[in-house]
C-alpha cells in the first residue's frame, strides 16, 4: 500500500484513501479492532505505519482501542482508529474521555445497518445521532462525512487538522458504500496540503498549567515526557489538571469544551451546493445518499423541475445557519438517507412551515434515484 507517498492520480478504495490521507496528515499511531466494513483501514495502517516509524496495534476490543488512541495522543502523536456502528457504541464512554482530557484524535466510522449486529456487510447511515449523543454529558463533537473517494482523502486531512486545532476527537463518517467503493483520486503534492499541528506549550515549564487556555479557548499542549509536566484528567479538573468538584469550575469547563468548537462553527461547516441558486425544491443529503440525490436532480431538471442539492460534509456541529438559509428559499425539502430519518429529525427543528419529506430505506440497499423521483412527483402533484 502507501500510494500517496507521491502525488498523482490513483484508483483507490474509499477506506484506503482514508488510510493514505491519515499518514499524510502525520498520523503515526493506530489502535483498532477489526469490523466490517472498515477493516481495510486497519489493514492499511498495519502495513503502512511501520514504514513511516509509526505503530499499529490490534486491541482486544473497541474500548481498549479508543483508550490506546487517547493515551498515544497525549504523548503528542497523531492517532486514529476505525470501526463501524457497533464499535462506536462500545467506544461511547471513552469518546467523552477524549473530549474531557482534550486528546486530539480521529475516529472513523464506516456505517453499517443496525441495530445490533444488523446486516454486517451492508451500508446504512444510522450512526448520525450516536456520534453526536453516544457519550453522556454535555459536550460538542466535530463530524465530517465524505461522499466520494476523493472526499475520503480530503476530509481525512481536514479531520486531523480540526482535531489538532481544537484538541478534540473528530469523527470521519463513511458508510459501507463510500468505504468500499473504488474511484480515481487526485493526490496533490505534499507541500500543497495544509497540515495543522496542535499548539505547543511555551514559557517556563515549572509554571505550566495543562488546562490553561489561550484566547481561542484551546489549551496549549505538552506531551507526556516533556519537562512541562502534563496531567490529563477525565474527572472534573481545574486548569492545573488536578481534580475539582467545584460547581462553578465544572460549569466553566463544560461550556469551554463546547464553545471552543461552537465559536468556530462557520469555519468548520463544510458543504457543497448543486443547482441551488434557482431551485425551489431542495434535497439535503450526505455520504452515500448524495449520488442518488444528484441523479434524481439531473432527471428532474431535464423535466423542468427546479431541484437543487445541498451536500453536508460537516454533520456536527450541525450547520444550523446554512440549513436555515438554504431552506428559506425553497418550497419543499427532501432528505434522502439510509436511516429512518436521523438527519431529518435535526433539520425539522429549523424548517418552520416548509414541508420536509424523508426518503428512507432499510435493508442495507442504496437509495435509488427512482425512490427519490417517486416521492418528488407525488409531492409536486399534491
Amino acid at each position: 500500500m502507501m500510494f500517496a507517498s507521491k502525488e498523482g492520480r490513483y484508483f483507490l478504495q474509499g477506506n484506503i484513501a482514508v488510510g493514505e490521507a491519515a499518514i499524510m496528515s502525520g498520523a503515526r499511531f493506530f489502535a483498532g479492532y477489526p469490523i466490517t466494513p472498515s477493516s481495510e483501514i486497519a489493514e492499511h495502517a498495519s502495513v503502512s505505519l511501520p514504514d513511516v516509524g509509526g505503530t499499529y496495534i490490534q486491541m482486544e476490543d473497541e474500548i481498549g482501542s479508543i483508550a490506546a488512541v487517547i493515551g498515544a495522543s497525549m504523548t503528542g502523536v497523531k492517532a486514529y482508529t476505525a470501526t463501524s456502528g457497533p464499535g462506536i457504541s462500545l467506544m461511547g464512554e471513552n469518546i467523552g474521555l477524549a473530549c474531557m482530557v482534550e486528546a486530539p484524535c480521529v475516529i472513523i466510522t464506516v456505517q453499517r445497518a443496525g441495530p445490533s449486529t444488523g446486516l454486517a456487510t451492508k451500508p446504512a447511515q444510522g450512526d448520525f445521532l450516536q456520534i453526536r449523543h453516544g457519550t453522556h454529558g454535555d459536550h460538542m463533537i466535530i463530524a465530517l462525512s465524505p461522499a466520494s473517494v476523493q472526499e475520503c482523502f480530503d476530509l481525512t486531512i481536514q479531520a486531523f487538522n480540526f482535531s489538532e486545532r481544537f484538541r478534540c476527537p473528530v469523527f470521519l463518517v463513511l458508510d459501507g458504500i463510500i468505504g468500499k467503493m473504488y474511484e480515481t483520486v487526485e493526490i496533490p503534492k505534499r507541500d500543497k496540503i495544509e497540515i495543522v499541528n496542535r499548539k505547543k506549550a511555551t514559557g517556563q515549564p515549572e509554571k505550566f498549567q495543562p488546562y490553561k487556555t489561550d484566547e481561542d479557548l484551546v489549551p496549549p499542549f505538552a506531551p507526556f515526557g516533556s519537562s512541562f509536566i502534563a496531567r490529563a484528567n477525565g474527572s472534573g479538573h481545574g486548569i492545573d489538571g488536578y481534580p475539582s468538584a467545584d460547581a462553578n469550575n465544572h460549569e466553566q469547563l463544560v461550556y469551554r469544551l463546547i464553545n471552543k468548537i461552537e465559536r468556530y462553527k462557520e469555519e468548520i461547516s463544510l458543504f457543497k451546493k448543486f443547482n441551488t441558486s434557482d431551485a425551489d425544491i431542495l434535497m439535503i443529503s450526505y455520504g452515500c445518499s448524495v449520488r442518488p440525490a444528484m441523479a434524481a436532480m439531473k432527471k428532474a431538471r431535464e423535466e423542468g423541475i427546479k431541484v437543487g442539492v445541498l451536500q453536508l460534509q460537516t454533520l456536527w456541529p450541525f450547520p444550523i445557519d446554512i440549513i436555515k438559509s438554504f431552506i428559506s428559499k425553497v418550497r419543499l425539502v427532501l432528505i434522502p438517507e439510509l436511516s429512518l430519518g436521523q438527519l431529518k429529525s435535526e433539520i425539522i427543528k429549523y424548517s418552520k412551515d416548509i414541508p420536509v419529506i424523508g426518503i428512507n430505506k432499510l435493508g442495507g440497499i442504496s437509495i435509488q434515484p427512482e425512490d427519490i423521483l417517486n416521492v418528488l412527483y407525488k409531492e409536486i402533484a399534491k
Partner: protein
Amino acid sequence: MKYNGKKYIKKELLPFFWCPGCGNGIIFAAMTRAMEENNLKKKDIVAVTGIGCWGKADDYLTTHAFHGTHGRAIPVATGVKLANPLLNVFALVGDGDGATIGGNHLIHAARRNIDIIVVMSNNLNYGMTGGQYSGTTPYSSITSTSRTGHVEDGFDVSSLVKSAGAGYVAKTTIANPRMIQKFISKAIKKKYGFRFIEIISICPTHYGKYNKMNNAVGMIKDIKQRTINIKKAEQLSPKELENKIIVGEYNDQNIEGYIQRYRKKINK
C-alpha cells in the same frame, strides 16, 4: 529508610483522601521510594489511573499523569508506551478497575507482554462505592451486595496474569512495605515486558466492617498470619494452603517485551 520518595509527592494535596487504616498510603509510599531508588526523572514517568480508591493515587503525584475511565488504565497506558517507548509507564489499578471491569485488558496486556508496570492494590471489594463485591472478593465474604455471603470465588489475580504470559509477576501485602518497594523497584529495573505487582490491601471501612474483622491493625495482623512465601507454599497441599495469601515472585523471566518483538517483526 534510605529513600523517602518526596520529590514525586504533591505535598500541597496531602493528607490523602483515603480512609484511616486504608492500605493505599503504604503502597503509595513504597512505590515513590522505588521510583527514587531507580533515580527516575519525574518527566520520564507517566502514571495512568482509572476509577476507584487506588485510582486517586495520581492526584498525589508530581509526575505526568492520566486519570481516565473505570477499567481502562491498562489500554491507555498501552497507547502511551507504544507512542513513546522511552517513558516509564505505570498503570495503577485496584481489583475492581484492573481485575473486574478491566479484566479483559489485563489478560491481553499480559499476553502481549506490553512494556508497562501495573501496580494493583487489591482490597477485595469496591471501596469507593460503598463496599460491594468485586472480582477478587472471596467466597462467603459479606459485602454490601452479598449480605448473606458471597456466592462466587474470587480471582487469584497473580496466577491469572502469570498464565496469561506476563514476564514478571509478584505478589505481596501491605504488611510488608519493604517487599512492595523491592518488587516495584525490580520491575522498574527490568525495563521491558509486562510487569505486574499485586498488593493485598485492606479496607477497614467496608470489607472489615461487614466481615466483623478487627480494625486496621487487626486486619494487618490477620494478613500476616495468613501470609506464606511462594517457595514454602510449593511444598504444601491445596488443603493446607486454604485461606493462605501466597506472596513472592510468581514469574521472573526475561521474555522479550512487545516493543522489541514488534520492531523485529517489522524490521525497523
